[in-house]
């Protein structure tokens, strides 16, 4: 149990892969979700981008981005409080979370303007 708690600590290098793992899960969920939704319940193309699919995808993206941004903030706080190895780990993790947050925002941006199943 102790080992597990240590791994969750924001100075653990496991967070190097934390943000991008969340990004990957989000990416698979959004791409897979879009594909399945278009196969099962395709909306009327006349609706344009304002469909239940796009709204759901946007909500999922927003929650993911907020979670990642929170983790980035937490890592920056930890980085300030440590030196050496732990500072390095938290600092690199913080920027990786920042990148993951921006990556979610950037990749999700087309959801606002493009109809889902065309």
């Amino acid at each position, binding site marked *: 149990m102790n080992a597990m708690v240590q791994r969750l600590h924001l100075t653990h290098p496991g967070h190097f892969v934390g943000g*991008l793992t969340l990004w990957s899960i989000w990416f698979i969920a959004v791409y897979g979700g879009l594909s399945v939704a278009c196969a099962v319940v395709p909306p009327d193309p006349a609706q344009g981008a304002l469909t239940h699919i796009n709204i759901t995808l946007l909500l999922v993206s927003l929650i993911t981005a907020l979670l990642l941004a929170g983790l980035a903030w937490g890592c920056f706080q930890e980085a300030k409080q440590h030196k050496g190895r732990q500072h390095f780990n938290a600092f690199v993790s913080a920027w990786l979370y920042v990148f993951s947050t921006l990556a979610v925002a950037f990749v999700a941006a087309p959801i606002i303007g493009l109809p889902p199943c065309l």
Partner: protein
Amino acid sequence: MTTINREATGPENLQKLHDDLSEVWGNPKGLKALTIVNHTTLGLRFMVTGMAFFLIGGILAMLIRTQIATPDQNFMTPEIYSQVTTMHGTVMMFLFAIPILEGLAIYMIPKMIGARDLVCPRLTALGYWCYLFGGIILCFSMVLEMAPDSGWFMYTPLSSNEYSPGLGSDFWLLGITFVEISALSAGVELVVSILRTRTQGMALHKMPLFAWYILAMALMIVVGFPPLILGSILLELERAVGMPFFDIAGGGDPVLWQHLFWLFGHPEVYIIFLPAAGIVSTLIPVFAGRPIVGYGWVVFAITVMGFISFGLWVHHMFTVGIPQLAQAFFSAASMLVAIPTGIQVFVWLATLWLGKPKMKLPMLWIIGFLVIFVCGGLTGVMLALVPFDWQVHDTHFVVAHMHYVLVGGMLFPLMAGIYYWLPLFSGRMPSETIGKWGFWLVFIGFNATFLIMHWTGLLGMPRRVYTYNTGFGWDIFNLLSSIGGFVMSAGFAMVLIDITLHFRYGKPAKTNPWNADTLEWANKLPPTPYNFVSLPPIETRHPLWEHPELPQEMQEGRHGLATASHGRRELWGTDPLTGKVREIIHVPSNSWWPLFAAMALAVVCISLLLRWYPVAGAGVMVAIGFLLRWSWENGAHPKAAPDAKVMPGDPPLHSRTMDGPGLWAMTTAMIANGSFFLSYLFGWFYLWTVSPEWRMPDASPLSLVALVVAGVALLGGSALMESSVRRLRKQLDSGLAMRLYGAALLGGLQFVLILWVMWNANLVVTETSHDAILMVGLYYALLHSALGTVISLLQGMRVGYRYVGAHAPFEPVVVTYFWRYNVVVFWILIAALAVLPRVIGG
């Protein structure tokens, strides 16, 4: 610096120590040289074999350029031309680029992290033999004029029976799968070696950048190769048995192949690029004479590339007809990858800017890399734009972009690395004059070939057409490209001559000839089989800059593990994060088993090609026999480490602990296995939701009750394994053998029940992809059940021989990990194959 080990020897005993180490680690000669498992020898074998395949691939490239140098050529028939283009791509990607970089990593990593070998030396040897045999089998198809001819990505239905009725596709599918065993072996052991065998004190953030790059590459191999292995198995099953995974009429979908191929194929570009970038990040600080600017940013960039590269695969499929929004996701993700690439380029430029670069021969190749790779990266961003991609898809523009990225991004840094480490390989320096001639010919020839090829692409010339009519405006560009190709070949010939001659005429290299900072230069030139007489504590990123006396100290045996009279091959087992020593890892010595196992697998491969299934079955059994015998000689076995004695103050042997490299290797292997399983699930759900002719029966043919009982048996077996491990942690081994036999019995029950389910399902695997893919899933479960049963049974037997017990508790822990994996995937399989269809329906 402090060391946890004592000064093991005085000057009077130094020669004795060297003799002991040579006896324990030495390489046999003659026929027995085939048993060598040492990373130095095998790394070199990988690289030399890779260079041989590079020459074959290069000759094929020149044949292509000859054929299309002028319009209306009939130098080659269309059939042969298709074989040549397919084999050029296949050889370069699978038999040259990945193996040679793996070879470099295999050679270099232990030396850089202060170890004496990789953590699974016999696996290195198995990987090499599989690579060699697989490559020979694949290339032999050209001699028979039966080579694959569907392009190096083997798109279905072109590669299916209908359009490729010969053996060409089979050569590709079986040969490449065979070679991939090698890649996965190297991937697993590089991950574990980097994480667990760094010398004492080398914390993660002090590790050489090259090790970071190789760690990322190895993890990407572990995750990225299984989708292609699955795809190859499915396509071979379709071709050999008629299971219609990619056939629309049977409920399959040819686009599934594209997904599985590019799930592997795009990350593969980065699997090739990352080690090459690792060479660049190693060399630039050395020749700039200062530490790299932004070590942390490089780690950041490596991590981002490792992940993002898995999110780009659909950008190879922009023209197959997927929704615009999905295309936009992949287009955006493709652009994102420019960020970590850009960070690295700026880090390299800043390091050069702030240092005092010396333009030695390796640096020429680095500068060439920077120029070419940045151009390739820019055309990559262009191709990420969907409308542009539609315009140039399948034209020479894409071919030119790919060569800018791969030759610029991989071959130039590789050449830089080879020249840089040449003194380590041979103890001699290369000729600057011939080397510079070689570089300039390659650089000019390359740009003449491929810069111009962008224009033929923009003018609309499709790739892989064997000839063209005059009048399209392509004639002069093709001719110039071909001339450039031959100039480039002349350059490589010069490089080859330089390298060959240097072994005899090169000036002897002095110690640390480039004034480098990393530990590999603390070796003798060329290195001994044991690398280092003693393993030093390292708490800096630049050990040789900060402690120039270190190589001497290490040679004098003044640091850790400076003893070999026990007869074991030993390395430090250190904490993956801090580098603190946890245990002594003892690794196996030279053995015939890897060669024998690879030979048996080669028999399987050839038998499958020839459709001699009984022989293939026998080959599988023989290979399993060899592999099990190999696994038997482990832990407390007389041929491994029967005596657990260590020097006073040293940590215990890993086989006498509950942790060790085997556990990490099992975990990493299960990540690869999990990637294979997830690819399978992707295939199942993809066909279910997308395939236009998918036919789901009204009632599931799988008996849910029998599967659940099988799952419960598996859980019971797993619980017995877990309880065995819990008791071993308390040093209790009474009844251990019975528990292990009990687990094997329950595994056997699961096996029988799965067989029963298969038998009763009456699946018609040649009729529908539904039945075919169910059968593959059941076979997967059956195989895992059998493996769990057999290894638990063997563990029980090993308890009887006293190879396992409270005194040597390690192996059951490793086996328990496998059981845990089995439990998770089997229940997911039940949910996906037997429960969901009942709940949702077709």
